[in-house]
């Protein structure tokens, strides 16, 4: 079992090693994709194996794996797999066209592997201090991806990203310290005191004032990573400037890792403080994010920026769902996390394909995708409708669950407001994406050389869309069980 846990986090390092030993884009990319496949396989196996077992513990609390960690492992590992396959196509095309030097390509795969495996590792630890260390390390690895193109815009985005999120995560560390302060009156066993299961089971005995401060600082700190408004300012720049598969990783894996950390703190805060304080904090940040995300989606411009603001909106929806709480709220939040992750991966990967073909990231420069490249255009359109929550895709189901959770909660104003905002988001984003796919086709030569790259560009889109469709029509029994078990872990 321990071997699998290690494989699940260290798998993506295969790409790092291959790139470090001097492989070119194709070889390093396929090595990374194979490693991500191994990680994904291990994550699925762990999820199934842990379903009816007690959480896995080891190494003095440093290793801790319960249903919730397995669920997030599955989410992040699927995104990593999709993005790793997409990277093969994107980076070989960039290398062939000479836009990126061989050194930059190698750096990309080195950082990509590190980034993925640090994130996966952060989901496997029970020690909240180590959680901080791994999340901060993953920030640094991904900053290399954002600044990869080394133009002034991408360096600027990378600088903003690294300074804002490093600062934010340091605030989360201060929150972690206050959590430990709140436990310091308990005379806990030293090696267990900082581990999540121990703190959670003693939550009622934690000093409440200190715990309240800890939760607030953690939401602000890790919320910076998640992209909750008003700490979201780094997010659109970083997503727009990073190579598209890296944007997919940022939006679908990194944001969720931050959300995972918030969920861990939330569970302790709920148990120690009661529901109302955490509810207020999450609803405030959640609605602020939805409003900001929706408002900026109205503007037509860089399409990757628009998708990034849609991520801000979705993280807000998840925070609101967590704030509503209850069975429906939690269930909806977790389902939304998985659905959004897959939909955003497809969206960013297809937008990468578009950016390669048209050599622009401006929505106004792209017309007639459906006629020119039917598959990519179709994927972009379907994925954007999926992200906007239209049936029959998974996000429809999860957003419906969240709205129902809102009506089950005390005040009907919140779910109504949520519905209205979702409506505006739909109009804003569909307006731009339909404009991109319809109209007269302009010539767009295929940027990929060789069959392998072309397949790698298309396969993740097809697989992702199929998964979204399945999740919209039917939630597999195993997934349902793991979500229910995760909810049991949290309450």
């Amino acid at each position: 079992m321990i071997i699998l846990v290690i494989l699940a986090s260290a798998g993506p390092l295969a790409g790092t090693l291959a790139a470090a030993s001097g492989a070119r884009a194709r070889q390093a990319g396929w090595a990374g994709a194979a490693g991500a496949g191994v990680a994904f396989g291990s994550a699925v196996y762990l999820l199934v194996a842990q379903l009816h077992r007690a959480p896995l513990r080891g190494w003095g609390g440093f290793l801790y794996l319960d249903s919730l960690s397995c669920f997030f492992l599955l989410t992040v590992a699927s995104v990593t797999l999709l993005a790793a396959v997409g990277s093969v196509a994107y980076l070989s095309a960039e290398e062939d066209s000479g836009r990126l030097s061989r050194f930059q390509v190698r750096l990309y795969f080195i950082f990509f592997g590190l980034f993925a495996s640090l994130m996966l590792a952060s989901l496997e630890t029970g020690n909240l201090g180590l959680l901080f260390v791994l999340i901060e390390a993953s920030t640094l690895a991904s900053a290399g991806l954002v600044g990869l193109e080394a133009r002034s815009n991408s360096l600027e985005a990378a600088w903003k990203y690294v300074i804002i999120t490093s600062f934010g995560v340091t605030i989360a560390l201060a929150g972690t310290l206050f959590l430990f302060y709140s436990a310091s009156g308990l005379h806990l066993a030293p090696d267990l005191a900082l581990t999540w299961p121990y703190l959670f089971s003693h939550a009622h005995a934690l000093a409440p004032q200190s715990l309240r401060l800890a939760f607030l600082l953690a939401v602000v700190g890790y919320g910076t990573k998640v992209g909750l408004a008003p700490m979201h300012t780094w997010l659109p720049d970083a997503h727009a400037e990073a190579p598209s598969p890296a944007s997919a990783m940022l939006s679908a894996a990194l944001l969720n890792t931050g959300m995972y950390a918030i969920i861990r703190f939330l569970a302790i805060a709920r148990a120690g403080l009661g529901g109302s304080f955490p509810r207020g904090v999450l609803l405030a940040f959640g609605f602020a994010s939805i409003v900001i995300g929706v408002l900026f989606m109205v503007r037509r411009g860089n399409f990757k920026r628009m998708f990034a603001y849609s991520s801000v909106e979705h993280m807000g929806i998840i925070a609101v769902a967590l704030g509503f709480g209850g069975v429906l709220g939690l269930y909806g939040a977790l389902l939304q996390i998985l659905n959004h992750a897959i939909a955003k991966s497809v969206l960013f990967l297809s937008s990468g394909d578009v950016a390669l073909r048209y050599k622009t990231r401006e929505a106004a420069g792209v017309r007639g995708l459906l006629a020119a490249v039917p598959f990519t255009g179709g994927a972009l359109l379907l994925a954007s409708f999926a992200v906007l929550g239209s049936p029959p895709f998974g996000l429809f189901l999860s957003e419906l669950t969240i709205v129902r959770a809102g009506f089950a909660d005390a005040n009907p104003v919140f779910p109504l407001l949520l519905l209205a905002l979702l409506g505006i988001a739909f109009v804003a984003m569909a307006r731009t994406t339909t404009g991109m796919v319809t109209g007269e086709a302009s010539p767009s030569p295929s940027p990929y050389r060789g069959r392998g790259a072309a397949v790698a560009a298309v396969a993740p889109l097809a697989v992702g869309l199929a998964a979204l469709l399945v999740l919209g029509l039917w939630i597999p029994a195993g997934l349902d069980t793991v979500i229910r078990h995760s909810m049991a872990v949290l309450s």
Partner: protein
Amino acid sequence: MEKLAATSPAGVLLDLSGVLILLLAFACLGSKLFNRYVAYYGAQSVVLSFAAAVVAWTFHSIELWILAGLTLAVKGIGIPVTTRRLLVRRLALSRDIAISTGLSTSLIAGGALTAFAYLVTRPELIPRGVVAAAVVPLSTAVILLGALAMVVRRHTVAQLIGWLIVENGVFLGAITLVATFPFIVEAGIFLDVVAGVLIMLVFVSGLTRQLASASATELRELHG
């Protein structure tokens, strides 16, 4: 766990270092020269390593001794020397003109933040088990002052120093949890800071080469 009484010599030394660290954060906030930013940060880190050594000595903790040594070597000497060589001297930075408020305003705001830190970390908030409870509000104040420095300064190098001061504040808070904070975590935090500084050095020098001035006021191309 044994407590560090405020009246014991070690307790007094620890409180004194905490106060010095706060004063150095104020000094950095009140200065306008890049050289001084770096120098005050270096001095603050030296005092921090002394504080870690005091706690290590009282609790006979070998790990904390190692950490104190690392703090001295990396944060007290390594980072200041590299930043001065690679950034301040090579980019010929002297006066920081990209400050959005006057120095007196930022000092007054810093004073208010310190008072706020004492308000939120009232003694009843700190449970009985913490070693040297007096350090907690000091470390909170240092965190807030670092954040203030990051907000009022626009230059990338100044923001980098601001983040490092925030980090020193957190570290000061962490050493009061000697027995419970595992060494691996402390060492990991340390490694993160070093890697972070290296990456930021690369970005700052890259930006400077392209923009001729690495002030974040120039960073206006991406907005909205």
